[in-house]
């Protein structure tokens, strides 16, 4: 399996706890990444479109707030599975790195 792009990973993560709309995903991704990743709307919708074509997410519902359309997206079972696999992969890599740093007397704490 090819490694997932960070933006894709963060978008899927933000949808993992429930459906979100575009602006919600942007602020959520910013939170998750500690303010480091700020998705631009163009980039976000390119990613959402691809994720939708790959059947990893689906539109959930639409709301109109202050006369503006909000479309919510949620993970499909395939999306949930892929995110879980990717998270496990990253965790295994991170754990290996920390373990080896420890052995080498590095500061892994």
């Amino acid at each position, binding site marked *: 399996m090819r490694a997932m792009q960070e933006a894709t990973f963060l978008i899927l993560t933000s949808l993992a706890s429930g459906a979100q*709309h575009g602006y919600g995903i*942007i602020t959520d991704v910013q939170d998750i990444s500690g303010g480091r990743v700020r998705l*631009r*709307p*163009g980039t976000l919708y*390119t990613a959402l*479109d691809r994720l939708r074509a790959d059947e990893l997410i689906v539109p959930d519902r639409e709301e109109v707030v202050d006369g503006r359309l909000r479309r919510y997206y949620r993970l499909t079972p395939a999306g949930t599975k892929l995110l879980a696999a990717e998270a496990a992969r990253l965790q295994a890599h991170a754990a290996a790195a920390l373990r080896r740093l420890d052995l080498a007397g590095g500061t892994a704490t």
Partner: protein
Amino acid sequence: MTDQAHLERGYRRLLAWYPRAFRDEHGPEILAVLLACAPDGQRRPGLAESADLIRSGLWMRLRPSVPRSARTVRAAVQLICAGAAASAASLIIVLAVIVDIRVRHAVLGHRLIAAQVSQVTTSVIVQVLVSCLVPVAVWLWMARANGRGRNWARILFTVLFGLTTLTLAGVVPPPVINIASSVVASNSIVPPSVITISVGPMVSMPSIPGLGPVIPVLTGLVVPALTWLAGAAAVGLLWLPASSAFFRSQGSLQARRRAQRAELERIRSSRARWPRQV
């Protein structure tokens, strides 16, 4: 006009870079996100923001949108892109050779008068460009149309590939373009630097005699062979049952979109008539 309305107009203009189908479906939604992201008092889209929208919009227009689930079609489209790359490679080789011919004449001190030299370069380069760009364009067009699941593209690609095969096998004589022959005829000192280009619908085979064994083999044999292999594999993949399912589903999707658009137009036009009736 308020700041917000001004900004909204700017964003709407930028959204025009997106394909129409995408804009119809996601335009209002993206607009809402853009406006929500904008700080109070912003009057026009920022530079980075605009660049992001233009880049994304162009990408949406250019990329073949094959979902990951349609594996066989994705592979076929990648092979067709490889075919385009191979045709482009033969074009680059030939252009390099033409430049080389010119340099050789200069080095060997052949008495080409200035007019002949410029005749070699400009007329030759234009003809080579046109005759070699046609196959490249055909391949790219086929990659795009097949990637969008157009069934006619699958059929056309197969037909063109069949024609190309017949051409390569020598069954159908290809149209041949002779280049630079006039220079040779008018000046016997010049070694034969005739470039012949056999143009198939998808492969151009330039043959350049008198330039050592490498280049004629590359352009006349290796590149066409690789191109043919890519095409053959792509045709095979496009007609697998899994691919047929993708073409069918895309076909019904397009029919639905067309119906939706017609319905929308109908509603709009009936609304436009409404006030006059009251």
